[in-house]
């Protein structure tokens, strides 16, 4: 999937800038430090999580390098870890523990959870990357996040960062209950994803009335007026033609075309109004990184809360969503390179 999301662009550039350094495997710390200042384009919250993630990652890498056990087992582990984040948790915790010294700062910054998560992903990535063959042999099959890690071989940059929490529900009832709780918790950058429009979700999400009717109406009126102006200009002013003894600018014969152009422009207004309000087309979105999300157009119901939300907090948001009894909960990461 092409990574052309606006948000990731600045980061992408800077990472490309330091790419030669990162290619040299020798000094991981140097490269992470080189990358750090360049993240200034990101929001303050992002900077913290990024910095913490990177420092933890550096530690995790050392830990992984030390603990070189059976390569085959590692490979299997990495695959499982990518498919099921839960199973990888144990590894991650180990890695985080080993990385205690380096991730100390991060823990102080109150982002221990971030560090652990980042360490988890890095550990998985490094295990994968240690086996060069495996890295080549895994094209984007098992989900974009894994694929991204695969292709990123042994470079030192984090290739992904948390983008959103994705909670999955089995029934519309569960979804609406959960949506009410998320709404009441005061989140803004969050959404429900359903295979069809679910009744009552507008209220449950606290959405205000859509503005699309206004857009359509304005466009329709433009159509009406332009029909009148066009006909009057062409048949009455620029080149008057008298047909059937009627005055050139007679009103009744204009009605059909006035109506048709009103409908036509209302239609265009509605189409483009819809695309504008929904910010479509948008072919790249971090939510698509989740394999489970494919069921959102089939038979599952999802709530996503973006890390961009001012109230977002890895721990608290996770706790909130866990309280709504999702059938599955995951932290979806987006690629940044």
């Amino acid at each position, binding site marked *: 999937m092409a990574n052309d999301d606006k948000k990731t662009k600045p980061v992408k550039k800077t990472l490309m800038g330091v790419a030669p350094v990162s290619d040299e495997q020798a000094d991981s710390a140097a490269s992470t430090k080189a990358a750090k200042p360049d993240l200034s384009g990101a929001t303050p919250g992002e900077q913290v999580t990024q910095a913490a993630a990177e420092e933890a990652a550096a530690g995790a890498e050392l830990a992984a390098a030390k603990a070189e056990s059976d390569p085959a087992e590692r490979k299997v582990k990495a695959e499982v870890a990518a498919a099921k984040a839960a199973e990888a948790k144990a590894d991650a915790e180990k890695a985080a523990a080993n990385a205690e010294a380096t991730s100390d700062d991060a823990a102080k910054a109150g982002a221990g959870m971030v560090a652990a998560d980042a360490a988890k992903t890095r550990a998985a990535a490094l295990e994968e990357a240690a086996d060069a063959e495996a890295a080549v042999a895994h094209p984007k099959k098992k989900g974009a996040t894994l694929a991204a890690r695969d292709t990123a071989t042994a470079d030192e940059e984090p290739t992904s960062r948390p983008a959103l929490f994705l909670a999955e529900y089995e*029934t*519309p*009832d569960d*979804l*609406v209950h959960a949506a009410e709780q998320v709404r009441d918790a005061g989140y803004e950058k969050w*959404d*429900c*994803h*359903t*295979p*069809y*429009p*679910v*009744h*009552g*979700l*507008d*209220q*449950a999400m606290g*959405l205000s009335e*859509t503005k*699309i009717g206004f857009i*359509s109406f304005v466009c*329709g009126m433009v159509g009406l007026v332009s029909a009148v102006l066009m*006909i009057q200009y*062409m*048949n009455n002013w*620029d*080149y008057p*033609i008298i047909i059937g003894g009627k005055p050139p600018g007679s009103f009744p*014969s204009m009605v*059909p*075309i006035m109506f*048709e*152009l009103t*409908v*036509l422009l*209302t*239609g*265009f207004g*509605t*189409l483009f*109004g*819809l*695309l504008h309000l*929904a910010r*479509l*087309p*948008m*072919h790249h*979105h971090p*939510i*698509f990184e989740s394999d489970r*999300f*494919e*069921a*959102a*157009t*089939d*038979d599952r119901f999802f709530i996503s809360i973006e890390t961009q939300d001012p109230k977002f907090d890895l721990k608290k948001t996770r706790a909130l969503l866990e309280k709504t009894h999702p059938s599955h909960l995951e932290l979806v990461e987006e690629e940044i390179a």
Partner: protein
Amino acid sequence: MASAAPIHELGERSLLPPGTTFNDVTEAVCRLTEEKAPRGWWVLFLPSVALLGLMLSCIVYLLSMGIGVWGNNTPAYWAWDITNFVWWIGIGHAGTLISAILFLFRQNWRTSINRFAEAMTVFAVLCAAIFPALHTGRPWFDYYLAPLPNQMGIWPNFKSPLMWDVFAVNTYLTISVIFWYVGLIPDLATLRDRSKTLLRKRIYGALALGWRGSHRHWQHYERAYLIFAAISTPLVLSVHSIVSFDFATSVMPGWHTTIFPPYFVAGAVFSGFALVLTLMLIVRSVFKMHSLVTIKHMDLMNKFMLGTGIMVGYAYAMEFFIAWYSGNPYESWVFFHNRLGFGYLDQEGNWGPLWWSYWAMVSCNVIAPQLFWFKKVRTSVPAMFVITIFINIGMWFERFVIIVTSLYRDFLPGSWGSFHATWIDILLYMGTFGLFFTLFLLFIRWVPMIAIAEVKATLPHAHPHHAGDDHAEDHPAALGTVDAPAPAE
């Protein structure tokens, strides 16, 4: 929003089998685009492509020879070409009626057939547009119809009903395509998410515009859909009204009638439903979709045909009544001599030579659908198949009767003639079926032919039962089930 409450009150059951899950719907519809085409598809597709080739050859021949290769003559200046145009446009009307008008009336049973019917609208309008475009004689100058500045400094005459027609048909085509596409977006996303190959994922992904089922989008989407339905409803009524103005604003006896707009619209819906049903019966058996398109759906469509058939029959009768009651000899001549073959003989004591076309029309359009009074006929697949074919033929004859029998024996015996179709008339008309069916078969093969998201929304468990109180009363309605308990409040 009083959804389909009437259905509920009438005690009608959900049209889909109980226990249908969301995934069942996805599977049932998507598999058609994912599996290998059934043999029946190829059996239909290859002849369609052959007919399409025939159409293209006819057009090339016609362009190289001029429209004299048609049977049009003096005084029958309009004949099969305009007949076919009006017929095809009318066919399209059922699609819009099903997708827009039934939506406004919250007839949820439409969800199984609306996509299908909308596609039919688009293709039928394309077929229709071929005829007037060629009838101009030099189609490469058809852009004169558009209000474009030109070196001659003249503009189209906006007082001409033919000009209104240009706007009406083009608007209709454009809006139909947009409405259809907007309806498709969520379903294309479903296909995208089920794609096994990269190519499919890319193509459906591009077409789905990155749809992610977001409720923030659904909110705008639902309103947009409502607006489309709200503008399509008067649009579809206007299109055939304006087509009828082509005739009604003239001073020809047989054309100059105020009953034409409603009469044309009823006829359009009538013929459109007939063709939707004809096609659906074929597609349903080829693709084995009996669980999604049920006998109950067809029963309802047959009732529509019975109703609109009676309206059309009333219009025929009323035309005759007025022709007689007005005492206008020219009007009476057209109706009794040219059409009915009763009274008003010519000098040689004969009826008009095309009297049989009138009786073909009446027997197909008025008599045949009366069988739909019987529930046994309404629910019998072979019976309805035959009757819908009759209606399709009858509605073609209706347009032929209106156009040709009003023209072929004019005010003076000196300008009398008749009309004989040439082989190119016939082949070109057959060829448009090739265009229609080729597009249609490609559509059912590559695009979800049933509105997946809309069908899901009508399932009994689709909506939370506790949610917003003012929505509570919608649910049993949305389900269309008798089993759903009436809301307490």
